[in-house]
């Protein structure tokens, strides 16, 4: 190695400069174009479990099986302001099971027992059918299997339970594994502001 500034050094310097400029230009272009984060979400108007019109189909649980996270990032979410607060909720109970002595179905629907039921409002102690009930879904237990979602769907229920991706669990893959499998193309990408508003 000599100390002279050779042609090779000049070539290297020029090449380095050019490559840096190209990279800089590319980066600048991308930064200019950049937007905020985009996240995946389930479109309830397309999802098989919640969209109007599909009857007599079993619940689709691809959200549970396809997600790359160990317990799927999809959860059933009950939008309480749209919930009917019914005494006999088809998403909580398995309404085809035998009726017990209280007049309620004996079995619960959720295979992971994620829904809790409690009377709210002006409660009638003598007549439990005369009450409103609140149904809460425990997100630690729910795995997004969709059984309750499809039972809550109109016309059987009011459609207040929908499947949603929870962003504290979702890894935000470039191509959501569920979106590759979803038969209705219900997984869409939306700006994060819209998804959490």
């Amino acid at each position, binding site marked *: 190695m000599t100390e002279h500034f050779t042609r090779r050094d000049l070539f290297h310097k020029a090449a380095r400069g050019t490559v840096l400029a190209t990279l800089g230009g590319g980066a600048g272009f991308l930064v200019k174009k950049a937007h905020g984060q985009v996240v995946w979400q389930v479109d309830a108007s397309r999802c098989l479990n919640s969209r*109007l019109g599909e009857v007599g189909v079993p619940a689709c649980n691809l959200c549970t099986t396809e997600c790359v996270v160990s317990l799927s990032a999809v959860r059933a979410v009950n939008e309480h302001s749209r919930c009917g607060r019914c005494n006999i909720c*088809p998403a909580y109970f398995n309404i*085809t099971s035998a009726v017990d002595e209280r007049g309620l179905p004996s079995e619960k629907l959720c295979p992971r027992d994620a829904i809790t039921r409690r009377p709210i409002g002006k409660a009638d102690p003598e007549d439990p059918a005369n009450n409103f009930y609140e149904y809460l879904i425990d997100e630690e237990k729910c795995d997004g299997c969709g059984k309750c979602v499809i039972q809550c769907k109109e*016309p*059987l229920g009011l459609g207040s339970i929908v499947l949603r991706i929870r962003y504290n669990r979702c890894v935000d893959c470039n191509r959501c594994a569920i979106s590759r499998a979803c038969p209705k193309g219900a997984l869409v990408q939306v700006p994060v502001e819209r998804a959490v508003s």
Partner: protein
Amino acid sequence: MQYRQIAVIGGKGPGPGQFAASLRGIAVDAAGSVYAANDSQITLFEAGGRLRRRWSTSQPVHSVAVAGDGAVYAGQIGQIEIFDGGGKLLRTWRDEALLGRVTAIGFFAGDVLAGDAVGRAIRRFDSGGKFRNNIGRDNPLNGLLIPNGMVDFGVDAHGVVHAANPGKHRVERYTPAGELLGHIGHFHGTNPAGFGGCCNPTNVAVRDRIYVTEKAGPRAKVYSFSGELEAVVAADVFDANCKNMSVAVDRGGRVYVADTVKLAIFVFEPVAI
């Protein structure tokens, strides 16, 4: 008892006897003519199903009923419009508070009963439109539980108001003054004698029996006043996505059910076994 389908009236479409977007209420008068509350119109069919007349209302109609004198009451949001048999508007009862959304109308002894889905009550007015009392609002406690958004009832010959209380899976009996007399019906997931799903029965009509319709596994059934299931009028013929199917009964015991998806009125006749 069994029923067989004898006619289908109306249907979905732009034609003269067809319905465009909604079919929310039906009624039958003494002569057997069928009145349909659809879109923003009242459509009148002959007993055989032929279109006789159709007129527009100022707002979308949610229910229709025919009084003893032939006046046609059309229940809407915030008001009831009263027409004569020819379709001429006679008067309008306007009351935002008491007539939030009139989904059922009935008559007894000169009084007019209007089911208000927003207030979750049956309002009793005299023939002039003056309010008398509520039925079913807080007796007992939480009153009529209607997540389906429809109050429906029928009045029998003795003046007993049979109101559907779908959240409780019952048809409750009230006096016109509002006193709760009792109820029939219970929940059952599989037995047809019970009311299934989350909120059934959705609609009620009364003559000498209690006629109900249900959603989600849509069907029409007939019960005796003591609560025994007498017949399942029909089930498979309705669109599976129907909800709040209005029901009416005529003098001959024929049952009329309004399919809210196919937008057609199915007519069933009892058959002697």
